[in-house]
């Protein structure tokens, strides 16, 4: 088998064109897959492409090929036999065809890959919709929580780190939410031993053994500027399955 016959036997399209796109060689696999007859081969590469592909060829592929000498992994649809379009992956590079400058084009069928990628794009679109819905829900929740300006609402991790603080908490603690969420509840409030014990137990067991924890106490809060104020504190255990983040407690603080 000679080299040309080897090219014809390859299970992909092998095409050679001049720099302007004039067809110099097209292998047998391509002729069959693209529904071409030897008597009526296209003169130019772009005749193999649907209109969308022709634009992409002119605006992206050929400029890149001219400038960089090579293009890799370009997704294209090629006109196939029986009016079908064949999803293909294209690699191309500059070369010499005898003594003429040429471009060599190799197109691999990529039907399954294209389906997979279409699914990825579909999933991406779906994720965007989910993200938009989640953001909208978050804004509603934030608006509700921030609407209660005379009550501080905190969410704590199992060990007592502050994971969330509303505007009410910012006002009562005299600190921004960003600062609050970098601290622990014990940095601000004097807590009785039984609460401290509960927090340490929760941290050790990751909260799994504790279910109904409920405290209602009056205590002292040291504000950001060092002033001390009396507050009422309500601490409630959150059911683990109710939260996505590792939140274990909700704390309501009221200036009294």
């Amino acid at each position, binding site marked *: 088998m000679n080299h040309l016959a080897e090219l014809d036997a390859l299970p992909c399209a092998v095409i050679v064109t001049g720099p302007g796109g004039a067809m110099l060689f097209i292998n047998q696999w391509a002729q069959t897959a693209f529904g071409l007859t030897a008597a009526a081969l296209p003169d130019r590469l772009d005749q193999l492409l649907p209109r969308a592909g022709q634009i992409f060829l002119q605006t*992206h592929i050929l400029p890149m090929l001219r400038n960089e000498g090579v293009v890799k992994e370009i997704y294209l649809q090629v006109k196939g036999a029986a009016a079908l379009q064949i999803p293909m992956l294209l690699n191309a590079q500059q070369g010499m065809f005898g003594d003429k400058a040429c471009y060599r084009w190799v197109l691999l069928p990529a039907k399954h890959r294209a389906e997979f990628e279409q699914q990825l794009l579909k999933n991406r679109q779906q994720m965007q919709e989910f993200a938009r819905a989640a953001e909208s829900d978050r804004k509603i929740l934030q608006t509700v929580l921030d609407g209660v300006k005379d009550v501080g609402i905190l969410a704590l991790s199992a060990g007592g780190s502050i994971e969330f603080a509303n505007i009410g908490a910012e006002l009562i603690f005299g600190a921004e939410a960003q600062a609050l969420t970098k601290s622990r509840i014990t940095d601000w409030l004097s807590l009785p031993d039984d609460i401290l014990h509960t927090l340490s137990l929760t941290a050790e067991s990751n909260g799994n053994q504790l279910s109904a924890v409920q405290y209602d106490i009056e205590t002292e809060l040291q504000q950001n500027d060092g002033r001390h104020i009396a507050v009422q504190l309500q601490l409630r255990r959150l059911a683990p399955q109710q939260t996505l983040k590792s939140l274990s407690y909700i704390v309501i603080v009221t200036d009294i």
Partner: protein
Amino acid sequence: MNVLQRNNVKITGSKSEPIIMYAHGFGCSQAMWAAVTPAFEHCSRQVLFDFVGSGQSDISQYSFSRYADLNGYADDILEICDALELSGDIIFVGHSVSCSIGILAANRRPGLFKSMILLGPSPCFLNMPPDYAGGFEQEDLAGLIELMDQNYLGWANYLAPVVAGAGTDPVIAGQLSDSFCSTDPVITRHFAQATFFADNRADFAKLSVPALILQHKEDALASVAVGQFVHQQIKNSQFVILDVAGHAAHMSHPALVIDAMQHFLQQELHC
């Protein structure tokens, strides 16, 4: 905001020489002019730039509302001229959609351009029967958008915004790749919509600046019939058909483009 940085403006040549401003088409960047500009470097002051969202422009300045149609790109041109304090006598050279963008800028600011060279212009890529055949149907262009969605250019960037939670007007961050034609796929898609769904036929008819139309002999994007339509619309225009197959003679056959430009500009340039 520094417009010259935003649009990656590059200037060569003496201030005393005539000004040539080059605008690239949809797809790549100012690098597309690299084979043409050396022919004019000793006889002109050359201004090259990337539209925001293309090439090495500042992608963070991309606005989906501003660039929803070609007028936003015309704003880029006018703002670059303002930043360079260029108020007139500019020779504008545009490729493909930049011909339309340049004409929008010219109509908005009469006197800014002394002459225009339009390479592969198309005022409207869509067929508008019965009077006009731009060459493409709506479904062809929808297919182009789908093709670009599924392509690999910048895919990592394309998938990334989901992680952050994309809004209706996604924030574009980071830098475009150094690769010649690699642009952010979200922006490219948006630019494609602005380009291929535009109808600027009436704007071409309003142009009063002398223009040279350089038409590719075989061009799948802008046919000879489209070029002839442009010639009819622009009263003070010359029409030259280049013996070129394709849509980018400035890259594939720069000598032909240079010859045509030099001939057209012989009164203004002494190269």
